């Protein structure tokens, strides 16, 4: 008899495999001084860009004769900047051993081209999902679009990692909407909107009422010290990037 969805209490604990989005920290050098300098410059303007995302060190680009990075120091530096490194991947046995000593996990056979996947962690894990997957509801892929239906208030910030964001309520002055993809605001946009946060120049911003403090696409930004054209100010508008370097604001 096929398994039907009967109302039964959810068990207290379930195990399932997951692929979660995180940040790869790709090391090109293991030298303390070089890393220190670059971290400082990289985060100088946006010290709190990250909000506690998980991160993995990728060693695939480290030269074979590279020294062992000071893992504990490196992890601490990233933590202080809002990233939570928990593992290394593509590490040589020597690097991996040092990483383990520093309390990091070692991810084996992680495909370098893919987002980091936790597959074989050193901790013993029972084979997940002893029950057959119920066919009628395949687990949806991690939602690529975030939907926000409450006003975003001054000081609040939402970040849609890896996808678009749709906001159905006002984005007030001092609030910040960030997406790796495009941003849709079906209400007054009075705060900041940063689309294409990881460099997607095709990302766009749409709003039904443009009154933003700042808009940015793939790092190219515009502030509104002087109000935008009357054709778009407080009106429906689209913001996109032309020639990868020029912010264009058009009425919708």
């Amino acid at each position, binding site marked *: 008899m096929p398994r039907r969805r009967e109302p039964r209490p959810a068990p207290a604990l379930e195990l399932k495999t997951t692929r979660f989005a995180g940040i790869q920290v790709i090391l090109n050098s293991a030298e303390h001084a070089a890393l220190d300098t670059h971290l400082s410059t990289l985060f100088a303007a946006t010290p709190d860009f990250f909000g506690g995302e998980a991160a993995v060190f990728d060693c695939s680009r480290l030269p074979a004769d590279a020294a062992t990075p000071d893992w504990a120091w490196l992890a601490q530096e990233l933590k202080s900047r809002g990233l939570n490194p928990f593992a290394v991947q593509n590490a040589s046995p020597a690097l991996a051993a040092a990483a383990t000593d520093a309390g990091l996990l070692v991810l084996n056979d992680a495909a370098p081209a893919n987002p980091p996947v936790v597959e074989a962690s050193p901790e013993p894990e029972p084979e997940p999902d002893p029950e057959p997957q119920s066919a009628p509801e395949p687990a949806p892929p991690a939602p690529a679009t975030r939907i926000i239906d409450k*006003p975003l208030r*001054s*000081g609040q910030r939402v970040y849609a990692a890896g996808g678009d964001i749709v906001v159905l309520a006002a984005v*007030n*002055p*001092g609030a910040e909407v960030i997406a790796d993809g495009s941003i849709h605001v079906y209400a007054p946009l009075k705060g900041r909107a940063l689309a294409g946060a990881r460099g997607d120049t095709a990302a766009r911003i749409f709003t039904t009422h443009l009154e933003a403090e700042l808009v940015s696409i793939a790092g190219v930004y515009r502030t509104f010290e002087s109000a935008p054209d009357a054709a778009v100010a407080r009106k429906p508008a689209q913001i996109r990037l032309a020639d990868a370097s020029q912010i264009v604001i058009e009425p919708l």
Partner: protein
Amino acid sequence: MATIITVTSGKGGVGKTTTSASISSGLALRGFKTAVIDFDVGLRNLDLIMGCERRVVYDFVNVIQGDANLNQALIKDKHSDNLYVLPASQTRDKDALTEEGVEKVLKDLEHQGFDYIVCDSPAGIEHGAVMALTFADEAIIVTNPEVSSVRDSDRILGIIQSKSRRAVEGRDPVKEHLLVTRYSPKRAHEGEMLTYTDIQELLRIPLLGVIPESEAVLHASNQGIPAIHQKGTPVADAYSDAIGRFLGEEHPLRFVDYEKPGLIKRLFGGK
């Protein structure tokens, strides 16, 4: 079951303490057993506005730290029978407020049969302000008709929505009310001030009332008598209306429209 009302604003000097004094007095006048707590540890003002500064022996921090019991610290108000004031300490700082300590005091007040507990928040978004809003059931956001005050109110609303117990535990959210204070219909009409509809459009929470700018407030503060007792003044009437609305009554907004003074009025004066 006591209802905890936090009066907060983010910005300083907008009328939180004046509002706490008048709202708590108004609730007491309507027969509810009410306590009002000054969370502004280190800068206590509520006792001055309530006119009980000479009767302060023990304070909120003494109760939290177990140096005094609640009944020793509660001061009975002179003007209304059902109202008790728990003053702040002048000599400590806001770190003396612990979450467990505040929670215990609020629980104890509830056990003593209080209907409403009004928490007068300090300005800012730091520890003291967060402690004042953590246990709120309802919040009165006091805003002046100017952009910085509105911006700070927006910020504090975000904090209520993320840090209050109700938000953290996923219960029904804190019920938010907008109270616009120091409102001058004339200046709003002439575009020198935001109008209350501008403010409401930005903050998007229900309007509890509009309190007009008035000299009566300063006079009340200096006398140590909450403004709601200044019978016949627009401020007292506006606060009474706001309390009525808080309790679910319908009252039309008063004192928000500007009438151009007519010729006679201009010739013969009048305010």
